[in-house]
């Protein structure tokens, strides 16, 4: 029951009516309904997933209680280690067990026996594991106190708008909202409506139509022409952004309609002047999580009185980011690629600052060029998500550089391409307006006629060109 289905629309419609019928205070009434709805939503994929979620909730809640202020620092530290072992163990078992089992079998030279199990990857496990982990870590750091309310904690873990694909919330942000009154003002409702509308547009009009174009090309890169590969290269970057940010927007919009504020996950990343800035604007909930809980602790770590090399810290962090997506070589390479780029950028930064124009058209050109170069470096990395094997990335580049002819002959039809450009255009217009104004709700400030025209156009693009049959999001596989 993904957000972009009519079933979900009906489900959420009924839920929202019931939610509004329950008095705002005391909050337990609405929380109870929300928890039931969250489990029904999550269990709609596979009820066994809901069982795992409940198990994780009980264990983490118990660990949290054991980390109360009345406990000794040593006990709290032990509990944190236990929490890390439990959550990462769970994630490791479901997500990485087969990878390591196959690797072990290969290492032992066994071609017939592998201890790999037929494990189904629970939906969104990477997202909710990281979200839950923020709870014991923040308690240990003294940022929050453990909650004694099991209902509140269960809802924090299972909160349905973000359980499948983020944003990865922090306990310190979500738990207080769960425990307090959540008024749904007209402004909040309006913002939520925009986020749902815009998220749906990005997903079913832009991403799913681009996916129909890119998927067959990247499935068999050797049989596509150079022009097709080049076009698919750009289309895929936009597709992934539209898919993932579309989901995040919808999650945040739905949460707003329930009175919650989830963290921003994307902030016009393709308008970033360099990679560090881009990474502050792309999948912000994960990058901030990694920065806060992995990068800084590693950077501040002093084994034997000496700090680690910054390049090594970046490398560890980014390879970890890569394999968070999945235990494959291609994701590890993606992490390594970004680590290398960031280290290189840090080394080049003083030189770049020296040659950077100070004002005038040269500065404008420099800035535009920076945005373009940054986008291209990032899009190259995204190819790791488009293909299954690392060598296929090279095949794509080879095909573009050699300007290869299509293997099966035929010509590249521009007709679907024009349609795609037409469908992507509203995204470019809104994103550039958002980037210029640094305001995701910039559309609200447009004149009434422009807003009306835009809503009308967007609505009919959804109706006429929206892909209603694709009910998965690209990132829910992680």
């Amino acid at each position, binding site marked *: 029951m993904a957000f972009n289905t009519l079933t979900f629309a009906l489900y959420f419609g009924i839920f929202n009516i019931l939610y509004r019928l329950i008095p705002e205070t005391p909050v337990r009434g609405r929380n109870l309904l929300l928890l039931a709805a969250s489990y029904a939503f999550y269990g709609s994929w596979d009820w066994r997933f809901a069982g795992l979620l409940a198990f994780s909730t009980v264990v983490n809640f118990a660990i949290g209680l054991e980390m109360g202020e009345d406990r000794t620092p040593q006990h709290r530290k032990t509990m944190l280690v236990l929490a890390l072992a439990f959550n990462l163990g769970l994630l490791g078992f479901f997500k990485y067990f087969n990878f390591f089992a196959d690797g072990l079998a290969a290492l032992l030279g066994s071609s017939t026996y592998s201890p790999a199990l037929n494990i189904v990857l629970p939906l969104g496990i990477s997202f909710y594991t990281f979200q839950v982990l923020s709870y014991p870590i923040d308690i240990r750091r003294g940022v929050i106190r453990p909650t004694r309310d099991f209902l509140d904690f269960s809802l924090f873990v299972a909160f349905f708008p973000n359980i499948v694909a983020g944003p990865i919330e922090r306990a310190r942000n979500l738990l207080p909202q769960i425990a307090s009154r959540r008024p749904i003002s007209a402004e909040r409702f309006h913002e939520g409506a925009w986020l749902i509308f815009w998220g749906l547009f990005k997903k079913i009009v832009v991403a799913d139509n681009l996916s129909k174009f890119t998927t067959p090309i990247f499935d068999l890169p050797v049989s596509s022409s150079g022009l097709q590969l080049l076009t698919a290269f750009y289309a895929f970057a936009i597709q992934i952004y539209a898919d993932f940010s579309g989901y995040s927007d919808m999650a945040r919009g739905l949460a707003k309609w329930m009175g919650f504020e989830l963290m921003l996950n994307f902030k016009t990343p393709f308008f970033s002047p360099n990679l560090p800035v881009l990474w502050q604007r792309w999948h912000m909930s994960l990058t901030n999580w990694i920065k806060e809980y992995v990068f800084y602790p590693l950077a501040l770590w002093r084994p034997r009185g000496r700090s680690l090399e910054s390049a090594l810290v970046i490398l560890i962090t980014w390879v970890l980011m890569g394999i968070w997506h999945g235990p494959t070589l291609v994701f590890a390479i993606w992490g390594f690629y970004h680590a290398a780029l960031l280290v290189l950028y840090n080394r080049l930064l003083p030189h770049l600052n020296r040659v950077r124009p100070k004002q005038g058209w040269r500065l404008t050109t420099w800035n535009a060029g920076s945005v373009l170069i940054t986008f291209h470096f990032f899009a190259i990395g995204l190819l790791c998500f488009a293909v299954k094997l690392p060598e296929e990335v090279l095949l794509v580049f080879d095909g573009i550089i050699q300007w290869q002819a299509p293997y099966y002959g035929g010509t590249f039809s521009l007709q679907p391409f024009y349609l795609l450009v037409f469908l992507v255009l509203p995204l470019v217009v809104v994103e550039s307006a958002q980037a210029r104004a640094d305001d995701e709700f910039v559309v609200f400030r447009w004149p009434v006629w422009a*807003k009306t025209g835009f809503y009308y156009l967007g609505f009919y693009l959804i109706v006429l060109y929206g892909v209603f049959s694709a009910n998965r999001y690209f990132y829910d596989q992680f």
Partner: protein
Amino acid sequence: MTNFKRVPHAFLWTLLLIVLTEFFVYSNRESLVHDYWNKFVINEKVLAEAPGDYDYLILGNSIQKTGIRPADVSDRLLSIGLAGAKPLAQVALLKRYLRKHKPPKVIFLYVDPENQYDTMQVIARYFFDFTEFGTYASDLSRDERDAYVWKMFSTLDHRKVGLGQDRVAYGGPNAEFVRALLANRGFMQSPFHDRILADDFYATHKTHRRIQPSITIEPRDRKYFDELMTVADQSGIRVVFLGMVVPEELGAIFETNGFFKEYREYLAALRARYPRVTLPGGETFGIANKYFGDFQHMNDQGVEFYTRYFKEEVFAPTVASAAAER
């Protein structure tokens, strides 16, 4: 009470524009639907309610509609039918006809044994009015009911049918389509009228959806066949079965896999229940592939052949026996 001052004006304007757009599209759906077969279904209402009475009606589906030219048979013959029609749709169509006309003397009825997949959705969407939908809703599947409800959101509905890749588009305006339908007394030229089906079509399309191993007769088909017979009986209409005509290559397959056998048994059972029903032309027969423009519908040559066959083997004996009875 909603405080409209707090509702963004752009939202209200958009809502108004959407309502106007939907109203415009819904009012003009006959013209906007450019899929040939859906256009056929949508316009059959016009034909069934057109002035003039007929003594003889062909009540079939797209095979008869595109295969028999009434004008070449008799000036008292009209061909009505809906693409993929089974008894439920045929009852609805007959009732529509009888609302505006005197009952005919004879109905040439084709009882379709094939699985017609989602055609009832199209009929629910384009043919049924509100009262018909209310009458038959309990016998419709969920998808068929959805199809009816969703048509109210006409732009979405139009997209669903308009962008179908495997359906033939009709280029002319709706008025022209209707004019031809009325002038030809229900006969419609198949969009594949100038093509010839290859002799080995089914040999090269071994998994074609028309190669069905068994006949498809649902409980609702039996129920509405009985209702159709009741309506006919009450109106003093005589019912004559039309046999199933297929490309000979498919006929050979149906003879082998038992499809024809099952169909003959089914027709025999119906005739045992309704002994007055006659079957002058035989239950099943295959004619050369060259008479078909696609896997199902006849080309110009096929229309000549089938019309002549109908006139000589079905219509003439029926008229003669009716005269003799009198």
